[in-house]
């Protein structure tokens, strides 16, 4: 089953790609084997994150970017993240509605993804899904974050670079700029630039960027003015995007970021795995209650017990 799926994915077969993402979303046991099997095929795609407040027109802008990239014959995959309801777990996923003219284009793959309780603007499954799309041969993989604001920094740890989309007239742009979202952007877009106040917003961004501590390599963050509805400024944006990526490759930023990404991912997954085991250990039988009683009755001292248990957990892990 996995062999067939892997084969389908590396041949860019839609059904296999889609099913693999479902496996990741549903956290099926075969997931790890799948990702490992795909791993040698990854590393070619460029990974772009798009973030920005609701109403900034991220999806419509993305729709235009896809149009441009398709003219350049690039294959594109999109992961569009929407929030799951914290109450019911349900979600309405509608971002692809704004990209519907690409639905029947075989060179475009769009997948809607519910956050399923994951915080940080993306879904828990996003990072591994990117690997699947990478292995499937997409040239550009775009992650569109939920877009609710300040806490959406996780996309930084998945994407090669992040585009921050802002619009004039939402009233909260100054706050957003102050709140540190600016830190995550590599490329800035003032969308709906046909509106009044667009230039003022641009000036404000320039000012905040000026305050920003110099980038690792002294790269200047570009600002683009676009209108997704009027289809203006898109070509410049896409050119700028490619130039920026090229520079990142040349000056070593990309390599560093990818190294940082692997670092963070390793730390995160290793910790998560051990933590899961620890939780299981603690919740087995009434272990915890017994130890608590032992400590409260002064039968043992806390650190003595803790260290004994840690050794026990590690032993169990080793046997596994």
């Amino acid at each position: 089953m996995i062999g067939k799926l892997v084969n389908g994915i590396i041949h860019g077969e839609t059904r296999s790609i889609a099913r693999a993402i479902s496996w990741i979303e549903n956290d099926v046991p075969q997931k790890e084997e799948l990702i490992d099997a795909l791993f040698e095929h990854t590393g070619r795609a460029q990974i772009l994150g798009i973030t920005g407040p609701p109403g900034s027109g991220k999806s419509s802008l993305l729709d235009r970017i896809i149009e441009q990239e398709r003219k350049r014959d690039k294959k594109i995959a999109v992961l569009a993240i929407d929030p799951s309801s914290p109450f019911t777990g349900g979600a309405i996923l509608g971002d692809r509605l704004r990209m519907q003219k690409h639905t029947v284009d075989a060179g475009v793959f769009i997948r809607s993804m519910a956050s399923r309780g994951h915080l940080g603007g993306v879904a828990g499954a996003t990072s591994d899904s990117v690997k699947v799309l990478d292995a499937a041969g997409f040239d550009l993989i775009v992650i569109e974050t939920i877009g609710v604001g300040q806490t959406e920094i996780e996309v930084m740890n998945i994407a090669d670079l992040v585009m921050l989309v802002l619009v004039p007239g939402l009233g909260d742009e100054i706050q957003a700029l102050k709140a540190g979202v600016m830190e995550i952007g590599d490329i800035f877009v003032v969308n709906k630039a046909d509106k009044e106040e667009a230039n003022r917003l641009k000036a404000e961004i320039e000012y905040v960027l000026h305050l920003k501590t110099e980038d690792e390599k002294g790269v200047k963050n570009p600002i683009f003015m676009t209108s997704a509805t009027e289809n203006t400024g898109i070509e410049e944006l896409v050119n700028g995007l490619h130039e920026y990526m090229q520079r990142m490759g040349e000056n070593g930023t990309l390599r560093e970021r990818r190294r940082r990404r692997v670092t963070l991912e390793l730390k995160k997954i290793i910790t998560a795995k051990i933590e899961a085991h620890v939780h299981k250990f603690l919740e087995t039988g009434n272990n915890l209650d017994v130890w608590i009683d032992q400590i409260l009755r002064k039968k043992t001292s806390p650190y003595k017990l803790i260290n004994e248990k840690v050794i026990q957990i590690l032993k169990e892990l080793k046997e596994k």
Partner: protein
Amino acid sequence: MSRKIRILISKPGLDGHDRGAKYIARALKDAGYEVIYMGIRQSPEAIVKTAIQEDVDFVGLSLLSGAHNELFPEVVRLLREQGANDVIVFGGGVIPQEDISYLKEQGIEAVFTPGTPIQKVIEFIETNKERVLH
């Protein structure tokens, strides 16, 4: 492992009456499902492409213009042609009683006409979801 049922809601054909489709989408979300909403004026081809990319378990089609006999079966046919054999298709809208048996023969597994309580749709999904577990 946390399995979530994913459902595509769409309107094939040209009719723009989306009150019902939007209600269903929202109510299914409230029932805990992940709903991919595709909106109005979709071709069967686009619906099927989306269903496959989104790897949905169910496809719900809504139509009020009377084109259901042509368009609903076309969605099922294209799904099967493209190997999506496990996707369950259901429909709703202004659909005369006598067309329902024809649509069922064509692989539309349930048809919900105006006035159907949402609970019926949820029951249908719950009783059939085991078949699409993967």
